């Protein structure tokens, strides 16, 4: 009896000692990560909040309350940039998702080696640098009749277009570029998810006499719902932060037709040095992204288990 009572106590002591040791080791292992995080992520986020209520000056900023926010909301360019961003997102994200899904379904019956080859081909643009690709696309969109795209469409009798220079086609040019270069990741993710579906579901469906489309509708699409949601949410988040293509390809023009929120914030900060305004707008952007993600989870996330 006495022995039995003793056992847990010694175990407890040992456990306690182990715990203390583990604490020290744990903190030692994450120390560098934590310091880097605190300095280059946590501190900037807190700092952004403070700056957004200030008129930033290198030597002593001035507190101006909500002025940056009020100015932003009454700024027509801000609303235009939000509209542009939404248009860009609506045109790119669903199409990219659909293309990736279709390609993944088509790759599926091929041999392993062919699958890998296609995965590599489609992923290649994601490996190339964005700047290099934008340089190339600039020349594809060359407004001269000798430009590649104009030449190509000339074969179909479509006359010369000033792709990036006209406000009616500039946005579409950026969208076209996204369609053809930003599907690599989603294709690979979709394919991995497709390969993860258990064969027994198809076997059961075959016994019931289901055809290809039925299997697609009743097995594949429900099974890929979590993957689709993941790609949708990350796609929208990414699209709302788009900056580089707009900056490098059109600079936001013509007539601000391609000024996205990301570019507007960049311009306010590093062109006009209005750090306070830029910080306020970046926080509004964060709030928009957070609410859209929340809505997506609410509407599309039903019946999904993780």
């Amino acid at each position, binding site marked *: 009896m006495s022995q039995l009572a003793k056992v847990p106590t010694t175990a407890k002591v040992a456990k306690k000692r182990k715990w203390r040791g583990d604490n020290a080791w744990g903190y030692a292992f994450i120390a560098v990560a934590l310091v880097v*995080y605190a300095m280059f992520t946590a501190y900037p986020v807190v700092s952004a909040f403070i700056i957004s209520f200030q008129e930033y000056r290198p030597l002593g900023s001035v507190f101006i309350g909500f002025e940056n926010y009020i100015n932003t909301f009454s700024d027509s360019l801000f609303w235009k940039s939000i509209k542009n961003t939404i248009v860009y997102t609506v045109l790119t994200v669903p199409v990219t998702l659909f293309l990736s899904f279709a390609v993944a379904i088509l790759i*599926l019956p091929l041999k392993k080696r062919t699958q890998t080859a296609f995965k*590599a081909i489609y992923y290649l643009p994601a490996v190339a640098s964005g700047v290099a690709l934008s340089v190339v696309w600039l020349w594809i969109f060359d407004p001269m009749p000798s430009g590649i795209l104009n030449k190509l469409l000339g074969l179909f009798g479509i006359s010369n277009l000033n792709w990036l220079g006209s406000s009616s086609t500039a946005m579409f040019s950026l969208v076209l570029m996204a369609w053809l270069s930003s599907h690599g990741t989603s294709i690979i993710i979709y394919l991995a998810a497709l390969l993860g579906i258990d064969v027994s579901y198809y076997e059961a469906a075959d016994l019931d006499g289901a055809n290809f489309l039925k299997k697609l509708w009743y097995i594949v699409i429900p099974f890929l719902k979590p993957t689709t949601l993941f790609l949708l949410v990350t796609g929208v988040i990414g699209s709302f932060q788009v900056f580089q293509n707009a900056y490098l390809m059109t600079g936001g023009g013509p007539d601000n037709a391609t000024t996205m929120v990301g570019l507007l914030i960049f311009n306010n900060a590093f062109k006009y040095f209005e750090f306070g305004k830029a910080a306020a707008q970046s926080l509004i952007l964060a709030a928009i992204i957070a609410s859209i993600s929340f809505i997506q989870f609410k509407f599309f996330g039903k019946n999904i288990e993780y």
Partner: protein
Amino acid sequence: MALYKKHTGKQTVKYTRNTSIMILLLLFALATLFPIYFMIISSFGDPVEAGAMDYSLWPAKVSLESYKFFFDYSEHSYRWLLNSLIVAGSVTVSNVIFATMAGYAFSKIRFKGRAVLFSILLCAMMIPYQVTQVPLYILIVNIFEIENTYRALIMPGLVTVYSIFLTKQFMSSIPNEIIECAKVEGCNQFQIFLKVIVPLSKTVMAVTAILTFMDSWNTFFWPFLVTNTMDMQTIQVGLKNFRFANTTYFAPMMAGATISALPMFILFFSLQKYFLEGVTVGAVKG
């Protein structure tokens, strides 16, 4: 049976189906690869002004003159590549070391506040980079006053939350029994880490290294912000200079673009498995 009919016995049906699928896929691949193809083909053209050249989809002749033109154009052309290599290299090494350590701690060491700290870290992945860009710029340029140095280029990327997340996900699948065994054998945590965890985690370390290197090599925004002389720029920023300073020289521009993309293409084709594996981590339940 699978999603597609096997067509056992009806070889012609299967053959026709797979061929039409291949044609569709190749057509889309053609559209996807066209910009890259166009970039490489055009880079072999002569370095003449754009108006004087003919845009062709097939190389009339292969000349390396445009590459020479690119390197002669600026005395810093080589330096840009070297800078990119230095920055991407150090960020990669540091990410692999510190993210592996943190990933191990978050997945296998039970310390106080582990869950809370990890969720705080994860929050960072949901914050748009626009929020941190202004304060980060002020921190580096006005407070630390280290703009235009390697430190400014490297420090913010020393450990990224994504790398930690990646390694943590991977290490969660290492059985605890192995670690318990090592403990019984008298290993302390550091020895366990070096002798048990690191050998078992080579895959995820390779994936982290590759993704970090790619990210860092291709990044344009941060080096563009914190460098202000040509000799400190990375290749991506240098390329942008080149294009705005010299928009009429088409072939050398394509040569520059090819040069900036080539290291990643080579890495990709030699380490394809790790690249493609890295994409699915965190996205697909294994």
